[in-house]
C-alpha cells in the first residue's frame, strides 16, 4: 500500500495549519509557504496520474481498517485526472492572489489550502459519508473565501450561498441515512454490490435516496433549477477565489459521474441508470438558459459565471449518455472549461482593476491604457471558451458532438449545443466591443500591468487551451481510458473489497434485529 495517495490531503492540511499559526504581519512568508505547498501538489498529482495510468486501482485503507468497515481512499484514472486539474488551476490562482488580493483580509492562504484539502479529499474518497465530510471541508473554506475582502455584495451573495448549501447538506445526510438504513453500508464499492442485489421491496427507498443524492450534487454542480445562486456568488467573489471556484461546480459533476456510474450505473439491477431521465433534459435546459443568461449579463464576471453554467449543462448532458465516447469527451471538455473559465475570472479581475470606476461593467468608459494586451487575452479566452478553432474548446465540442448516438438525442443535443454556442459568441463579442471599443474621450484610465498578475492569467487563458489542443490525442487517450475504467465498475468493487475475508459473526448480527 503506497502512502502517496493520502499526501494530496495531508499536504494542504499541514500547510494550512502552519499558515494559521503565523502572525498576520508575516504575509511574505505566508505567500511563499502557500505557493510552495500548491506547487508541490502538481508533481505529486502527476506522480499519482502516472501510478493510475496502468489501469490498476490504488486503494488506501485509512488506519489500515479494511473496507467496508474502514474508510478507503481510491485512486483511479478519473480521481488522478481531477487531482492534476485541481493543482493546475490552484497554482495560477494562488500566484495571482499573492500579488495583493490576499492582503485585504486575514488568513487567505490558510483558507485556500483548506479548500484544496477538501477538493482533493472529495476526489479521492471511496466512502459516501467521507465524501460528505470533505464536501463540508471545502464548503466551509469556500464560505470564508467568498466573503474574503468584505463588502455589501459579498455579504448578500454569501448569505444565499451559505444558507442554500446548509440546506443541501441536510438533504445529503437524509439520503445517506436512507442508503445506510436499507443497505447497511456507506462504502461506495460495497454499496454498488448491495444496490445491484436490491429486491423490489427495497427499490423504492433506494430510488428516493438516489434522486435525493442527485439533488444535492446538482446543487453543487449548478444544474437548472438550482443554479440561481451561482452568478451572484461567483461575480461577488474576488478574482483568484472565483478562479478557484471554477472547479467547485466540477466537484458536483465529478460526484454525479462517480455515483451514477459506480453505484447506480448500468449494472445496478432495478436501479440501473436512475438519474438519466432527469439529467438529460435538465442538462440541456441548463445549457440553453446559461447561454441566454450570458447574453443578459451586465458585467464580465457575471458573464463568465454564466459560461460556467453553460459548461455544466454541456458536461452533464454528455455524462447522462453513458457511452464511453461521450464520457471521454466530457472529461476532456471538463479539463478545458475549468482552466479557461478560471483564467477568464482572473482576466475579469485584471480588466476591472484597469478600468477605473467603470470596473468590468458593460458601459461606455475611458479607454484603458493597457488595452492591447488585455484585449488580445480577452480575444483568445473568448475563442477558447466559445469553442472556436484552433483552441481546445473546439476539439472538446467536436468530440462531444460526434459522440452522441444518431437519432432523437443527437437532434436535441446538436440543436441545443450549436444554438447556445451561437448565443455565447454573440454575448462574448458584445462584451468585447463594449469593454475595448466603445470608449469615450475622457483621459485613459489604468496603470502599468503587473507582469506577475498577467503571467498566471496568460497561463490559464491562452497557454492551457493551446496545449490541450496541441496534445489533444494523448489527453483524449487518457480520458478515453478513464471513461472505459469508469464504465466497468466491477473492477473498482473488486479492488476495494478484494478477496474478502469472511465477516466476523458479531458484526453481522449487530444492527439488524
Amino acid at each position, binding site marked *: 500500500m503506497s502512502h502517496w495517495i493520502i499526501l494530496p490531503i495531508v499536504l494542504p492540511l499541514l500547510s494550512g495549519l502552519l499558515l494559521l499559526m503565523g502572525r498576520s504581519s508575516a504575509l511574505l512568508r505566508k505567500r511563499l509557504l502557500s505557493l510552495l505547498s500548491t506547487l508541490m501538489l502538481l508533481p505529486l498529482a502527476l506522480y499519482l496520474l502516472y501510478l493510475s495510468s496502468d489501469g490498476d486501482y490504488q486503494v488506501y485503507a485509512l488506519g489500515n481498517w479494511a473496507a467496508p468497515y474502514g474508510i478507503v481512499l481510491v485512486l483511479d484514472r478519473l480521481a488522478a485526472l481531477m487531482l492534476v486539474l485541481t493543482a493546475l488551476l490552484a497554482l495560477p490562482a494562488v500566484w495571482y492572489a499573492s500579488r495583493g488580493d490576499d492582503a485585504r483580509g486575514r488568513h487567505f492562504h490558510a483558507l485556500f489550502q483548506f479548500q484544496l484539502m477538501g477538493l482533493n479529499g472529495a476526489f479521492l474518497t471511496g466512502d459516501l459519508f467521507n465524501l460528505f465530510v470533505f464536501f463540508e471541508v471545502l464548503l466551509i473554506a469556500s464560505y470564508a473565501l467568498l466573503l474574503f475582502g468584505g463588502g455589501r455584495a459579498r455579504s448578500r451573495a454569501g448569505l444565499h450561498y451559505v444558507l442554500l448549501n446548509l440546506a443541501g447538506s441536510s438533504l445529503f445526510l*437524509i439520503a445517506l441515512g436512507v442508503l445506510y438504513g436499507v443497505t447497511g453500508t456507506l462504502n461506495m464499492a460495497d454499496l454498488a454490490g448491495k444496490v445491484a442485489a436490491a429486491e423490489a421491496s427495497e427499490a423504492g427507498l433506494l430510488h428516493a435516496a438516489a434522486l435525493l443524492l442527485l439533488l444535492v450534487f446538482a446543487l453543487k454542480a449548478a444544474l437548472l433549477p438550482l443554479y440561481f445562486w451561482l452568478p451572484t456568488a461567483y461575480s461577488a467573489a474576488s478574482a483568484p477565489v472565483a478562479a478557484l471556484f471554477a472547479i467547485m461546480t466540477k466537484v458536483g459533476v465529478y460526484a454525479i459521474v462517480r455515483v451514477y456510474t459506480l453505484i447506480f450505473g448500468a449494472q445496478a439491477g432495478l436501479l440501473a441508470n436512475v438519474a438519466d431521465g432527469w439529467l438529460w433534459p435538465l442538462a440541456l435546459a441548463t445549457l440553453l438558459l446559461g447561454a441566454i443568461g450570458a447574453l443578459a449579463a451586465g458585467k464580465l464576471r457575471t458573464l463568465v459565471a454564466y459560461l460556467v453554467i453553460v459548461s455544466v449543462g454541456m458536461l452533464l448532458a454528455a455524462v447522462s449518455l453513458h457511452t464511453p465516447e461521450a464520457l471521454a469527451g466530457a472529461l476532456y471538455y471538463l479539463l478545458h472549461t475549468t482552466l479557461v473559465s478560471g483564467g477568464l475570472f482572473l482576466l475579469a479581475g485584471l480588466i476591472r482593476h484597469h478600468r477605473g470606476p467603470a470596473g468590468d461593467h458593460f458601459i461606455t468608459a475611458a479607454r484603458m491604457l493597457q488595452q492591447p494586451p488585455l484585449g488580445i487575452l480577452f480575444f483568445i479566452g473568448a475563442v477558447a471558451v466559445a469553442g472556436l478553432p484552433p483552441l481546445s474548446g473546439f476539439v472538446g465540442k467536436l468530440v462531444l458532438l460526434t459522440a452522441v448516438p444518431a437519432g432523437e438525442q443527437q437532434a436535441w443535443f446538436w440543436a441545443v449545443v450549436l444554438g447556445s454556442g451561437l448565443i455565447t459568441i454573440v454575448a462574448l463579442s458584445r462584451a468585447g466591443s463594449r469593454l475595448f471599443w466603445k470608449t469615450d474621450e475622457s483621459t485613459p484610465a489604468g496603470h502599468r500591468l503587473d507582469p506577475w498578475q498577467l503571467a498566471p492569467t496568460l497561463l490559464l487563458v491562452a497557454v492551457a487551451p493551446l496545449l490541450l489542443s496541441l496534445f489533444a490525442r494523448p489527453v483524449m487517450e487518457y480520458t478515453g481510458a478513464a471513461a472505459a475504467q469508469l464504465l466497468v465498475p466491477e473492477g473498482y468493487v473488486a479492488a476495494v473489497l478484494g478477496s474478502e475475508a469472511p465477516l466476523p459473526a458479531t458484526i453481522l448480527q449487530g444492527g439488524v434485529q
Partner: protein
Amino acid sequence: MELLVSLLIGLMVACGVYLLLRARTFPVVMGLIMLSYAVNLFLFAMGRLGAELPALVGLQGQTSDPVPQALVLTAIVIGFAMTAFAVTLALRANSELDSDHVDGVADGDETGGGGQ
C-alpha cells in the same frame, strides 16, 4: 415507537422547512437548526430503534449498530460549526446591509412576498 419517532421527525422537518422559507435571517437560522436536529434523529433511527442495546461488538445477545451513532456524532459536530458560521454571517449581513432580510433589501422597499 416507530410511528411516534417518524411522526416527530416529520413534524420537525416540516417546521424547519417552514422557517427556512421565511425571508428573515433569524427564522431561517432557526429553521436550519430544526432541520439539522431532525436529520440527526433520522440518522440515529437508521440504526434501528430498540431499548437497552449497547453499541458494542463482541457482546453476547443483541447489540445495536454503532455506525449510525458515529455518523450522528460527526454530523452534530459539523452542523454545530456550520450553524455558528451562519449566525455570524447573518449578524454581519445585518450590520452591513442594515436589514435582516435574506435578500438584503431594506424594510421600506420590499417588493412583496417578503414574509411580513
